C-alpha cells in the first residue's frame, strides 16, 4: 500500500510543479515583455520587483483574493463568472464527443470501422473544419441567436466536433476496441459465455480517460475561439479581452487557471490508472529476470 500512496503523492507533486513553474514562466513573460504592467499600469505594484509581484500573486491565489483587475473589478470574481460559463461548455462538449464516439463504435458494433469508409469519411470531413469556421457558419448560415440556450448548445456541439476532436476521439476508441476484441482473454470470455460487456468497459475506461485528457488542451483553445465568435462571456472571451486590453493580472490568473485545468485532467488520468490497473504498482516480491 505504501508504494501506491507514494505514487499518488508523486503525481500530485508533479501537478503542483507544473502549475507552479507555469505561473513563473507566464509571470516572467508578463513582467518583462514590452507592454508590461510597468507601462500600462504604472505605479501599481512596481516597487516590489518581479519576485515580490509573483509572491503577492501566489499569496492572492491561496487566499482567493487576487485584487482588482485593470478595470477595477476583482479578478477572482471575474474568474468565477467566466468559469461558470466556460466549464459547462468544456465538460459537456467532452461528454458529447466521447459519448457520440462510443455510440458510433457501438452501432458499428460487429465490424471494424474500416469497413465503413463512408462513415469514416463523414466523421473525418466534418471534424476537419476548424471551430471558428463552424462557429462562423452557425452564426452566418444558421443564424444562431446571440444569447440563450441555443447559443450554448451550438457552442457545445461545435466544440465536440471541430478541430478534429471527434475524429481523434472516435478513431482512438475504435482502435482501442479493435485491439481489445482481438485479445485472447476476450476470445476466451466469449467462448465460455461470460458476458464481455463488463470486460470491455473495464478495459476501455482508462484509454477513454487518457484520450479525453489529451484533448483537454485543444478544447480549452477551442473554448477561447468559440466564445469569441459567438460572444459568450466565458473565460476564453475574457482572456482574449484581457490580452487586448493589457489587463495582465487577469491574463496571468486565467492562464494559470487554464493550465491547472489541463494539468488536473492529466493528474486525474494518473489517479484513475493507479486505482484501476494493478500493474501500475510494482510487484513487491520483485520479478527475477531469466
Amino acid at each position, binding site marked *: 500500500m505504501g508504494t501506491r500512496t507514494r505514487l499518488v503523492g508523486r503525481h500530485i507533486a508533479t501537478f503542483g510543479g507544473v502549475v507552479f513553474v507555469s505561473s513563473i514562466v507566464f509571470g516572467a513573460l508578463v513582467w518583462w515583455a514590452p507592454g508590461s504592467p510597468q507601462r500600462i499600469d504604472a505605479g501599481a505594484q512596481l516597487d516590489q520587483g518581479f519576485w515580490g509581484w509573483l509572491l503577492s500573486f501566489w499569496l492572492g491565489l491561496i487566499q482567493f483574493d487576487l485584487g482588482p483587475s485593470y478595470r477595477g473589478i476583482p479578478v477572482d470574481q471575474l474568474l468565477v463568472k467566466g468559469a461558470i460559463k466556460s466549464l459547462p461548455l468544456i465538460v459537456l462538449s467532452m461528454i458529447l464527443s466521447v459519448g457520440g464516439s462510443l455510440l458510433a463504435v457501438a452501432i458499428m458494433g460487429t465490424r*471494424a470501422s474500416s469497413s465503413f469508409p463512408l462513415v469514416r469519411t463523414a466523421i473525418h470531413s466534418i471534424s476537419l473544419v476548424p471551430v471558428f469556421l463552424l462557429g462562423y457558419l452557425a452564426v452566418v448560415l444558421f443564424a444562431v441567436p446571440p444569447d440563450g440556450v441555443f447559443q450554448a448548445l451550438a457552442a457545445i456541439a461545435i466544440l465536440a466536433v471541430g478541430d478534429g476532436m471527434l475524429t481523434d476521439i472516435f478513431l482512438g476508441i475504435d482502435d482501442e476496441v479493435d485491439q481489445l*476484441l482481438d485479445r*485472447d482473454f476476450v*476470445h*476466451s470470455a*466469449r*467462448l*465460455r*459465455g461470460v458476458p464481455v460487456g463488463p470486460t470491455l468497459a473495464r478495459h476501455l475506461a482508462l484509454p477513454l480517460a487518457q484520450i479525453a485528457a489529451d484533448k483537454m488542451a485543444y478544447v480549452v483553445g477551442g473554448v477561447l475561439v468559440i466564445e469569441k465568435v459567438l460572444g459568450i462571456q466565458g473565460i476564453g472571451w475574457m482572456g482574449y479581452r484581457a490580452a487586448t486590453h493589457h489587463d495582465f493580472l487577469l491574463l496571468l490568473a486565467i492562464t494559470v487557471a487554464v493550465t491547472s485545468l489541463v494539468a488536473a485532467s492529466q493528474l486525474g488520468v494518473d489517479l484513475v490508472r493507479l486505482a484501476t490497473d494493478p500493474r501500475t504498482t510494482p510487484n513487491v516480491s520483485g520479478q527475477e529476470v531469466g
Partner: protein
Amino acid sequence: MSDPILFTRDLWVRVHDPNGGGSPIAVVRGANIELQRGATTCLVGESGSGKTVLMRALLGISGARPGVTAGTAWARPDGSEFPVPLVGPRKRWRGRALPSLRPGWAGYVFQHPSHSLDPLLRVGDQVGASVTIAHSGLTPAAVKRRVLHWLETVHLPNPEAVAQLFPHELSGGMAQRVAIAIALATEPDLLVADEPTTGLDWSVRRDIVDLLGELCRARGMSLLLISHDFQVVEHIADQLYVMFRGELVEDGPRRAFFEPGPGSHPYTRELQARSRALEEGSSPPRLHLAEQPTSSGAGCVYAHRCPWIREPSPERSALGERCRSVRPPDFRPSSDHRVRCIAVGEPT
C-alpha cells in the same frame, strides 16, 4: 464405434489478400476433422500451417482479420447434432461463440498464458466468472468454494493465496495452470489447448501436458491439443491429425503413427525424425527450405520440401512431375488411417 463430439466436412478458411486485389488466400483447405468423445486428439504441424486458424474459426473466436469460410460443421454435445455456425475471421464482434450450445460447452487454453488472463481482474474472480456460467444462482461463498476447488484441481500450491493475485504476479507455469482452471470451471465437454507449453519452461512443460491428460481422463472430457512438438504428441495422443500448409495430410489413430506398419506421409516422418533426433542426440535431417512452394493449388502441398522428390530413390524416380501437378488422392492403409500422398498410395 465412432462417436464424434465435434466434426467438420470440407472446412475452408480463406483470408482476403491484405494488399487489396486478388482472390482470398486459403489458409485451411478442406479440413475433415472428427473429435472423438473422451479422447485426446492432436493436431500437429509447424507454425503458419493453419492449425490455430482452423480451430478458432470452428469455435467462432477468430480475430478481426478479414476472411471467409466455407464447409460445414456439427457438434454433438449429447447424441443430438447441432450445426455449428461457421464464422470467418471477418467481423470483430459476434456476440457469444457457439450460440446453439450451452455456454461453456467448449474451453480454450491459449498459447501465451499471460494473454489469456484479464490483467485487471484477480485470478479468483476470473475463475469465479466461469463457475457462475456452469452453475447459476450460487451464493458467493459457494462460488468461492468451487473456485478454490478448481485451483486445487490444477495443482496450484496454496489456492487461497493464488486466488487473490493478479495475473502479472504469476509465473508462466502458474498462469497456464490458472488459464486451464478458468477453462475447466465451466465444466466443458471439449477442451482445446493451443500450444499450451510453447512459452513455458522445459521443466514445466511435461507437468502441464500431464495435467491436461489426467484431467481429461478423469472427467471424460475430449481434448484437442494443437502442437508442433512430436514429443508432446507422442506422450498424450489417442488420435492424430497432421497439417501442412492448410491441408490435413495425414490422420489416424495412435498406433498408425507410433507402431511399425504401412506407410506414413513423408512430412510426418520428417517431424518424427526431428523429434527423435533431438531426444537421442543424433543429427536431425536437413531442412530444405530453399525452394518456394508452387503458388497454384495444384499438386501436393509438400512437394517442394519432399525428400522423396528431392533425392529420389530408384523406385521413386518417376514421382516428381506427378507430385507437383496432380493433387494427391487419399490413401487408406487401414479403415481409420488416411494418408494424402501418391507415393505412399502406390507402394513399389
